[in-house]
């Protein structure tokens, strides 16, 4: 089984069913299938080969969904880049995986085009929303997506299969402790396995209508469309949760049955006045990225008494680890549940030996959902993929400290390294520190995560200034927001005269990670 077959099989079964609702557009499975075939033919005709990497740099949109399936149909590997990624990092990612094509919109194209000279591996831009045909005498060719879909040049018919299920399907870039992002390599088998397990425990069917407001660059968002198409459901895609009432009205109008949340969205949802809305169609809510505060769970249960609430936990390297069956949420609200179907999870000590109940250790995941490794980063890969119980197999060391109760339910304790998890995304303190050091006037900077009920962790930057330098909190945040994705911008900035040091002269982060307002 390959990932694009999620779409192909559903298009065969129910071609006229609504597959995708996005802003004012509604597309059937046949339309998605045919247009993604057209784009796949165009990719191949323009030199994209089996295993090539094609980057998708778009907001949540029809084109983003079509692109994901088109790249797979062409036998290539897709990566969805967060649309708030800044040029330097985008260039790093494109060059790191040697992407041959970039699919984007005209506004982002205008920004990237200036950096073309720094993208030696890229051959093609596929651009949506172009007003004029750009000059095509340059090394980098530019093609209009609209021309391609509306013309007769590219066939709507399916393409012959080139891949097998141990070929790569996707790369998902995630923060690494070195400060440079790493590409998580996912095979077709990895994705099909994870999607099968998750749709099994969520009991998804073709009758489901799944509403997604999370970016498709985030694996939790990406899997919503993959799983919806796998079961032949309807996928309602919103760009964001920026205008919550517009999203809620859509949820009611489209009779949405499944709503994936993260704690930041649930916090906003609980501030809204929702008594006039009819939520009777809603069947389940999922939460992952960070644990929901217990009082949110209670409020969500009161607001949606008929809805099944799934508390879950995962990491990009294996997609999902665990889920708490909805009937357990009132019994053990702070647990993230048990391993999902067709996956084994256990906890080990520092020597790799399994520990008993209620002992804290590192969580290990074993299953066909575990990634193939990090793209061209063998050292980083060997740190997390280590020999498992069977000869020759690897299991995933998550770097997360957990404990398990007598009945096998998991409780998150902390990260083993200093990676910050905020809004469900991993942030490398080093990556933020490097940006801070780029600001004139900063002498020393240390970035730490501090506990935050909603974000999981909030990013705090502690800074000392050079003599005579005058920087405000706002100057620092402005500089960060110009150079980092939105979720990486520090929420708190603290200026100090000096930073605490360890005996070896390194900055002592332990002392800095004090919650804001926790009596100084």
């Amino acid at each position, binding site marked *: 089984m390959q990932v694009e077959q999620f779409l192909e099989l559903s298009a065969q079964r129910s071609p006229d069913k609504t597959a995708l609702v996005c802003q004012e557009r509604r597309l059937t499975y046949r339309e998605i299938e045919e247009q993604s075939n057209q784009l796949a033919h165009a990719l191949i005709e323009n030199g994209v080969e089996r295993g090539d990497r094609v980057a998708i740099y778009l907001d949540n949109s029809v084109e983003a969904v079509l692109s994901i399936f088109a790249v797979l149909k062409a036998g290539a590997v897709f990566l969805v880049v967060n649309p708030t990624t800044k040029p330097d990092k985008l260039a790093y990612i494109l060059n790191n995986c040697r992407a041959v094509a970039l699919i984007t919109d005209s506004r982002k194209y205008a920004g990237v085009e200036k950096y073309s000279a720094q993208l030696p591996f890229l051959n093609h831009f596929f651009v949506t929303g172009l007003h004029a045909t750009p000059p095509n005498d340059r090394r980098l060719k530019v093609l209009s997506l609209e021309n391609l879909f509306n013309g007769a040049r590219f066939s709507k018919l399916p393409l012959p299969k080139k891949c097998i299920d141990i070929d790569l399907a996707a790369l998902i870039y995630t923060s690494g402790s070195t400060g440079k992002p790493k590409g998580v390599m996912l095979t077709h088998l990895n994705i099909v396995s994870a999607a099968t397990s998750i749709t099994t425990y969520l009991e998804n069917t073709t009758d489901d209508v799944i509403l997604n407001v999370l970016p498709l660059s985030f694996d939790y968002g990406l899997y919503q469309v993959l799983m919806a198409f796998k079961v032949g459901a309807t996928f309602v895609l919103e760009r964001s949760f920026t205008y919550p*009432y517009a999203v809620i009205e859509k949820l009611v109008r489209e009779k949405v049955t499944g709503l994936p949340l993260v704690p930041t969205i649930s916090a906003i949802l609980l501030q809204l006045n929702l008594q006039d809305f009819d939520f009777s169609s809603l069947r389940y809510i999922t939460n992952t990225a960070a644990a929901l505060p217990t009082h949110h769970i209670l409020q969500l249960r009161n607001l949606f008494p008929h809805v099944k609430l799934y508390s879950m936990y995962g990491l990009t390297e294996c997609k999902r680890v665990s889920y708490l069956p909805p009937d357990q949420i009132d019994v053990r609200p702070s647990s993230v549940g048990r391993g999902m179907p067709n996956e084994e999870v256990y906890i080990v000590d520092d020597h790799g030996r399994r520990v008993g109940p209620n002992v804290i250790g590192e969580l290990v995941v074993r299953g066909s959902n575990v990634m193939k490794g990090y793209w061209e980063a063998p050292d980083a890969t060997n740190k997390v993929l280590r020999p498992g119980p069977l000869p020759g197999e690897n299991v995933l060391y998550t770097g997360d400290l957990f404990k398990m109760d007598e009945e096998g339910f998991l409780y998150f304790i902390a990260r083993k390294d200093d990676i910050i998890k905020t809004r469900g995304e991993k942030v490398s303190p080093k990556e933020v520190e490097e940006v801070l050091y780029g600001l004139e006037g900063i002498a020393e900077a240390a970035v730490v995560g501090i506990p935050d009920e909603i974000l999981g962790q909030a990013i705090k930057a502690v800074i000392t200034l050079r003599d005579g330098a005058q920087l405000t909190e706002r100057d620092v945040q*402005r500089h960060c927001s110009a150079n980092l994705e939105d979720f990486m911008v520090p929420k708190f900035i603290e200026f100090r005269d000096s930073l605490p040091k360890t005996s070896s002269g390194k900055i002592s982060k332990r002392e800095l990670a004090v919650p804001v307002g926790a009596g100084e």
Partner: protein
Amino acid sequence: MQNIQQELRQFVIDNFLFGHGNGNLRNDDSFLDKGIIDSTGVLELVVFLEEKYHIKIHDRELVPDNLDSINNLVRFLETKLQHAS
């Protein structure tokens, strides 16, 4: 009107652009398209409008047509203020 427009621009620039980009923000720029505002930002904007202009914004009015650019905000606010007086 000029006044309101200036006040709104200043609020958006101070709070969502960290005081940056006065010259870059056009009055018809969509906050969504430009990635200027998120859902927490919308709620902050509403609190600001309600307190500053003594109006009550209803839940159903929190839509892009009313809030998603300086021009949309000015138009929305003028309608609200007319109805209030």
